[in-house]
């Protein structure tokens, strides 16, 4: 195939990608753009040319060692729900646009730390990008039939133009807004599309090789098993190889979080948290599918081509050698897709870091402050654009100068090891609030030094001079300092070895210095925010502890510089409305400071945002103790709020109870008043009679007829009796109700007790010709105070006699044993009790209003006393009108 045809195919494919990205940007709210599948496919930016070509190379030469690179992410995926979700929440709240921002914010918007992380990323990723370019270039050459073609200068190297096209693509869709934390829907969609292309075409070639060139997997396996070193290709190499596996898995585990392009797609471009749920199973599935045919393509290549140097491109060579150019082109496009997605996303992520964490905070801030808002926005975009081009050009230069000797696999792993230096500050920092910025910087630098000595240095020397001197003999011929076998650990592969030592040193420095050097208050503030961010409310604007003096107008000025007048106005209005503050608020509080820093972070990075805001405010130093106290307080406040709510509920309940009790007391008080009133009235009545009669008798001039005189004397006697009876009853009732009367409880036969009462009332009943019937002959024994029960019975029966019609009256006394109680009833055939009076008849001094008779002789206390007596026996008293006529009084006494 000619160069030009291939180049045209590439151009058409790139045009298609532009189109897809363009459509996605246009429809950025559509559900076709924002869904779990697109999110998962964008995560597959993890699979680069390294996966596409490099894995096959490893599988062909050293067996299944390519697998750990995918096992790490597979193991990490279920943890996303916990770890990645937390990272996403924090990032969204703070408008974080890169891993450098994320780490520097965690350690108090540390400017140098942000820059250091950026440099680490550049060190790792630029060679990685150049390797992608190398893959494009090499596959391009394999596919073109102009085998003699060797690029002599940059200008006629197609790879250079392809790199430039990629830069244009990344620039166009990556720098639409100044706010880098905004979503790049176009790029994400094109990455998702490319993920489909690369997987599909890789599966095509896998199926083609396995089932068309060969007779299925078993065929390849059986043929391969006859080769000499077959066993080493399918095993892990024992115990020592196991360590290699372990470290490589750990490495890739960290890489899936730390690689700038992974952070970009998984965190910055995440639209909805819930997309994670699908991704945790779909992403491992994607990786699994990608790896199904790797081993078979590799072996098929070994069997048919057998050239170990070209093993990385077996997928391309196999169809090509069998005359299937079309499939080869598809494979090429798949690999090309893997390259594009990696290069575009990685450059975008790196350019954001370079602009927000390196260029702006270290040079352009003063300029921005003086400049005009529109020009600032343009400058920020231009810084990013230049960064994108620079990165790609540097990567290209790196490729031209260094990469002919390097394999995809080795450079990929080297990138992973360098990126892994961010792991302690990133992972431990998420869960340990003591980690401090200084310790982080020391840890990263120490780790990098180790990586440089154990991996980069020997690698570079080997690649450039071909000398094995350092690796064989160590620095200054000291054996323990051999770069690939520090302190005699010689069984690990170079990357695993470098990973082991660098991380050991890094973690040690990080932990030790974190314990030794305390961070400042701001650092601790963000540390608490990161570590304790269980929910969104912990991350709100109020989470920043800040003390000082700041004018809203000053802050507004700074915001306008970067966001423009309209956006600033809108954002501030929103802020004031959210916290219910007046729109003309003069002084800024901690929340506004935090809010403004967040607003700026997206455009210029967190370190610059902090520097800018602190330039217009007068900040008071807050002591670490104070920060911790305030944070502790806000945590406690939440707990206390709950406690308070509970307490308040409890109090409300108590208040209600008190109110009830008070009402009850007032009622009691009123009842007492009424009782005293009534008592006074009742006592006054006979006294009035006695007094008036006495006066008349005293003043008698002997003209009073004797019968009247006799009647007066009789009245006096009657009133005196009434008075003494009343006094006796009042005292008796008071004693009973206060429980001051001891009951003389003994075993008695109720039949005898009733008979005794009936006998005593017989004369009164007989006088009114009322029948008093007691015909129950059964002996029922119960324990009670007989005198008191006689009192009750007397009262009930004499009431019955009083209210019965003379001559026709009939009163029946009966008793029975009922469920542990002795029940006694007194039934009459009088006119009954009006229903409205029924609830009150046992109240003291209650006398029916409708009694159409002469005032009864009673004191108004009879039934109240009966009730008291029965209740003092733990019994119950009641009254019930009969259906026809009359009323039944009854009481129950428990058997003891």
């Amino acid at each position, binding site marked *: 195939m000619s160069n030009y045809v291939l180049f045209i195919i590439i151009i058409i494919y790139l045009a298609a990608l532009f189109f897809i990205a363009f459509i996605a940007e246009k429809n950025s709210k559509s559900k076709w753009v924002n869904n779990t599948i697109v999110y998962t496919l964008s995560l597959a930016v993890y699979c680069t040319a390294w996966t596409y070509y490099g894995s096959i190379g490893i599988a062909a030469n050293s067996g299944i060692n390519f697998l750990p690179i995918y096992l790490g992410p597979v193991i990490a995926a279920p943890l996303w729900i916990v770890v990645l979700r937390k990272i996403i929440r924090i990032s969204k709240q703070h408008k974080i646009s890169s891993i450098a921002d994320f780490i520097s914010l965690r350690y108090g918007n540390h400017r140098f730390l942000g820059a250091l992380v950026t440099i680490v990323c550049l060190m790792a990723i630029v060679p990685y990008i150049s390797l992608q370019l190398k893959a494009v270039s090499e596959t391009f050459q394999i596919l073109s039939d102009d085998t003699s073609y060797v690029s002599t200068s940059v200008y006629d190297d197609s790879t250079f133009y392809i790199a430039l096209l990629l830069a244009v693509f990344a620039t166009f869709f990556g720098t639409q807004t100044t706010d880098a934390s905004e979503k790049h829907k176009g790029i994400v969609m094109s990455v998702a599309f490319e993920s489909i292309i690369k997987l599909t075409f890789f599966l095509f070639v896998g199926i083609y090789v396995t089932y068309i060139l060969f007779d299925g997997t078993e065929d390849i396996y059986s043929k391969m098993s006859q080769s000499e070193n077959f066993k080493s290709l399918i095993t892990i190499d024992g115990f020592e190889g196991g360590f290699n596996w372990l470290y490589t898995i750990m490495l890739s585990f960290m890489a899936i979080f730390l690689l700038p392009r992974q952070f970009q797609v998984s965190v910055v471009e995440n639209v909805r948290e819930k997309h994670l749920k699908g991704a945790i199973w779909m992403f491992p599935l994607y990786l699994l599918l990608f790896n199904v045919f790797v081993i078979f393509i590799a072996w098929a290549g070994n069997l048919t081509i057998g050239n170990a140097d070209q093993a990385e491109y077996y997928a391309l060579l196999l169809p090509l050698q069998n005359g299937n150019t079309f499939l080869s082109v598809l494979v090429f496009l798949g690999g090309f897709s893997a390259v594009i997605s990696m290069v575009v996303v990685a450059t975008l992520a790196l350019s954001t870091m370079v602009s927000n964490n390196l260029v702006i905070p270290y040079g352009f801030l003063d300029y921005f402050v003086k400049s005009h808002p529109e020009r600032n926005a343009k400058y920020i975009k231009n810084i990013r654009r230049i960064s994108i081009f620079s990165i790609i050009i540097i990567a290209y230069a790196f490729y031209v100068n260094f990469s002919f000797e390097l394999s995809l696999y080795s450079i990929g792993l080297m990138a992973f090891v360098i990126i892994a230096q961010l792991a302690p500050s990133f992972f431990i920092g998420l869960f340990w609030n003591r980690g401090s910025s200084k310790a982080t910087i020391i840890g990263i630098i120490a780790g990098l030094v180790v990586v440089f000595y154990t991996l980069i240095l020997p690698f570079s020397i080997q690649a450039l001079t071909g000398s094995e001197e350092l690796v064989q003999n160590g620095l200054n011929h000291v054996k323990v300092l051999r770069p690939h076998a520090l302190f005699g650990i010689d069984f690990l592969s170079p990357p695993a070895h470098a990973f082991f030592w660098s991380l050991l040193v890094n973690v040690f420095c990080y932990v030790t210095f974190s314990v030794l050097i305390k961070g400042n208050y701001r650092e601790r503030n963000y540390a608490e925010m990161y570590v304790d961010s269980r929910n969104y409310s912990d991350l709100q604007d109020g989470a920043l502890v800040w003390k000082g003096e700041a004018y809203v107008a000053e802050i507004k000025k700074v915001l306008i510089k970067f966001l423009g007048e309209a956006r600033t106005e809108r954002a501030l209005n929103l802020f004031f409305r959210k916290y219910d503050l007046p729109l003309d608020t003069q002084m800024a509080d901690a929340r506004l400071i935090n809010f403004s820093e967040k607003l700026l972070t997206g455009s210029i990075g967190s370190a610059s945002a902090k520097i800018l805001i602190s330039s217009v405010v007068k900040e008071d130093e807050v002591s670490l103790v104070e920060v911790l106290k305030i944070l502790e307080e806000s945590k406690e406040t939440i707990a206390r709020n709950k406690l308070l709510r509970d307490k308040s509920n409890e109090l409300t309940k108590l208040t209600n109870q008190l109110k009830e009790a008070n009402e009850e007391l007032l009622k009691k008080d009123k009842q007492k008043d009424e009782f005293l*009133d009534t008592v*006074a*009235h009742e006592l*006054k*009545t*006979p*006294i*009035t*009679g006695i*007094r*008036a*009669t006495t*006066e*008349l008798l005293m*003043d008698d001039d002997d003209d*009073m007829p004797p019968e*009247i005189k006799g*009647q*007066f004397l009789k*009245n006096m006697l*009657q*009133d005196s009796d009434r008075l003494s009876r009343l006094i006796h009853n009042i005292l008796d009732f008071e004693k009973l109700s206060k429980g001051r009367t001891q009951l003389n409880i003994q075993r008695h036969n109720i039949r005898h007790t009733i008979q005794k009462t009936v006998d005593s009332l017989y004369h009164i009943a007989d006088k009114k010709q009322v029948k008093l019937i007691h015909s129950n002959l059964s002996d029922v024994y119960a324990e009670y105070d007989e005198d008191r029960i006689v009192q009750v019975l007397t009262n009930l029966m004499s009431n019955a006699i009083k209210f019965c019609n003379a001559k026709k009256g009939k009163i029946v006394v009966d008793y029975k044993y009922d469920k542990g109680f002795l029940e006694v009833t007194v039934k009459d055939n009088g006119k009954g009790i009006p229903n409205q009076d029924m609830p009150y008849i046992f109240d003291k001094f209650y*006398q029916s*209003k*409708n*009694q*159409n008779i*002469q*005032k009864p002789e009673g004191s108004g206390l009879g039934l109240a006393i009966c009730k008291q007596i029965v209740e003092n026996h733990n019994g119950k008293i009641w009254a019930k009108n009969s259906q026809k006529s009359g009323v039944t009084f009854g009481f129950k006494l428990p058997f003891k």
Partner: protein
Amino acid sequence: MKKIVIVDDEPNIVMTLEYTFKKHNFEVYIARDGSEALEILERVVPDVIMLDIMMPKVDGYQTLKAIKDNNQLKDTKVVFLTAKNKASDIEKGLKLGADKYLTKPFSIKKIVSEINELIAS
């Protein structure tokens, strides 16, 4: 002859009052509660009505209201004679239009002089 209606549910007290006023040349009518009193007042227009307050059925207050509503009785003096002696009770009674408020227990002589004074005024 002056006419007096005595309204009280306590027969022993009524007896002393009846005896006394008869002796002082009053025509005495007896009612045991408010409704009986109102029955009597339909046919008799007395000079004085002596009212107890706490009575069954129609009490003293209600009776007084009925009397005040009856134009025929506009010249009749009404006297409360009751055991209720709290300041609030007295106030209430006078406010309702009673001409005098006397409390139990009472002195017969005092009652007679009060009533005579009232009729004379």
